């Protein structure tokens, strides 16, 4: 199958998934117990006029199928209405918080790669030696540490006791020295488990590659071990790491939901938790939709990149 046809097929699979993601997100308000109006206003008593206005605004007076299509039309133009709890425009709220989450997630992702890749190489090369065993246990410890606990401990030690970092985010623009400094602890908290996963994945895929005949051939031809590892083995071993980038995104989003609350970071994760506790359903719906679509698109992108990198892959 040619690359073009593969991409076409992959796109064709994505369309029903996107429809499913939007349909599931749409039905969220309707799956909630009680009337959808109750859910939207957060189960408060409202006057009959307000109720009628809400019914009209959310098209609740029409068949479910039409409701979905109308909602979808609004969602495509990022029109999610106003939050009944705060009265603010939902899209604007999310738009304001998205950069903060992207900054934190991006920093954590870079940290995960910066630690995970070298550690993966070292443990794979020294398989069976003490370095490998230490790395294995460190990775397991990283995976097993609850991120909210790690965050609390870091906050306690470095912010409360030592006073190196601020407890609350500075009132400074996102790109400024104070903000970058504040982001150190949240980034470590969020990036630790991700780094451990990258490391383990790279280690096992490198172990497999190291057994391949081309490695023996390269060594037999007298290539320095460094060149064999970094130029030949690593390039091939990277492919499985690339495929999990979509899962990594989901993993980081999960982490952000928790970590942002601990460090009072004004991102989407904290907004989601707060909206759940306040029963602010339109905001929840919009956030879940943004996350779902982002992950579907990330997976699509990863599959296409994978197919370009590895011409053997044409499912």
């Amino acid at each position, binding site marked *: 199958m040619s690359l073009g046809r593969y991409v076409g097929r992959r796109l064709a699979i994505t369309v029903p998934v996107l429809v499913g993601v939007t349909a599931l997100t749409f039905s969220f308000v309707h799956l909630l117990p009680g009337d959808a109006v109750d859910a939207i206003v957060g189960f408060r008593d409202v006057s009959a006029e307000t109720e009628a206005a809400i019914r009209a605004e959310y098209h609740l007076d029409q068949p479910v199928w039409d409701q979905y299509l109308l909602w979808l039309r609004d969602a495509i133009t990022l029109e999610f209405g106003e939050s009944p709890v705060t009265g603010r425009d939902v899209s604007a709220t999310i738009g304001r918080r998205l950069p903060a989450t992207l900054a934190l997630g991006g920093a954590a992702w870079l940290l995960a790669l910066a630690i995970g890749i070298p550690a993966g190489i070292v443990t794979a090369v020294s398989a069976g030696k003490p370095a490998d065993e230490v790395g294995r246990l460190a990775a397991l410890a990283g995976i097993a540490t609850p991120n909210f606990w790690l965050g609390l401990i870091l906050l306690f030690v470095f912010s409360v006791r030592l006073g190196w970092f601020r407890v609350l985010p500075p009132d400074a623009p996102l790109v400024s020295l104070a903000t970058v400094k504040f982001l150190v602890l949240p980034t470590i908290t969020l990036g630790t488990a991700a780094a451990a996963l990258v490391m383990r994945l790279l280690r096992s895929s490198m172990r497999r590659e190291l057994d391949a005949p081309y490695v023996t051939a390269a060594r037999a031809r007298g290539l320095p071990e460094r060149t064999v590892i970094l130029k030949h083995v690593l390039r091939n071993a990277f492919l499985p790491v690339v495929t999990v980038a979509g899962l990594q995104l989901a993993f980081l989003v*999960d982490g952000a939901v928790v970590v942002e609350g601990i460090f009072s970071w004004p991102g989407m994760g904290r907004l989601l938790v707060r909206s759940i506790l306040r029963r602010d359903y339109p905001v929840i719906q919009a956030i879940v939709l943004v996350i779902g679509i982002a992950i579907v698109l990330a997976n699509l992108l990863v599959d296409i990149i994978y197919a370009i990198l590895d011409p053997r892959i044409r499912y």
Partner: protein
Amino acid sequence: MSDRQPTTDRGRIRIVGFDDAAEQKRDSDASSDTADAAGTTADPSIASRGATGIDPTTASTSASAFAQPGRRLENAWRRFRRNRSAMAGLAVIIVMAVLAVFARPITVSTAEVTITLQPFSLAPDDPTAMFVGPPNAPPSLAHPFGTDWAGRDQFSRVLVGGRYTLSIGLVAVALALCVGVQLGAIAGYFGGWIDEAIMRVVDVLYAFPFLVLAIAIVPILEPVPILGSGYWTVVVALAVTGWVGYARLIRGEVLSVREREYVTAARALGVPDRTIIRRHVVPNAIAPVVVQATLNVGTVVLTAAALGFLGLGLEPGSAEWGAMLAQGRSSLLRGDWHVTVFPGLAIFLFVLAINLVGDGINDALEPDRDGRDDRRRMR
């Protein structure tokens, strides 16, 4: 089906070569075990390929499926037992389970009678009793882990909290397995539009991160009356989000298992599809799912603790390890470190132990599949 004992010479059909292969498999397993123990690198598959005329991988799988169902488990257990870190993990889990069970007496009470199932009480205080000590007291002899803001004994709460965490992990994973394995096996075995339908649902659910989906499901489940307390809300939310991983995984395995000769043979003999799936396909496709399920107990426990930490699901004030940390931020900022450290340490220990055991099972079941599970660990 009256003949429950699987044999290779059922009726008049005698499948030639299976018994030899089974013997070969046993020999090669034994030799590889000794070889591993001696630290040499003998490759048993080469020996068996030379000895028998048939493909050794197919033969050994069919042999272990038909001839000696218990044999594979026995070998796996032998390999597992030699794995020191996995055994340490298992020991930690057993100790924590025992501590949780014997933390407080368990009684079942109906209208009049109260039956005590478990009379022991390792925890000194009732985990919900307030002001058994001064609030926020640091660790002391009377309260080894200190007390929390309401003067509740942290040591008792950590011990009893193991009940929530361990049982949520086990029950949620078991429920998710029931759904995921069935749907995944059906999708993989039948293929076609059934496969398409099930896998598109899986794809849609896969688009949402585990915790985000669980968070969104909690308010939907919360008012359902039969779910009662927050406990079942959390369990069901985690099961609903968890089954997709197993479905996807076992489908992939089933796709290759269903092409095997013994499945074709069973179909030719007129065995109904559901029997083929239950007796022949699933048992041969389950190994990676077992590994993932074990590791997932850790993920589920972490997610359940995160839900508790965020104040979702369980009632606030429950002696669940994550929920105990919910007050952790404010107590930490006041300088009361002990409120946060001990419940978190308990979660960490349990999840670490689960991961050690999961790695051990992985190595024991599929020695040649080093680390295939890592991408699955993220779900």
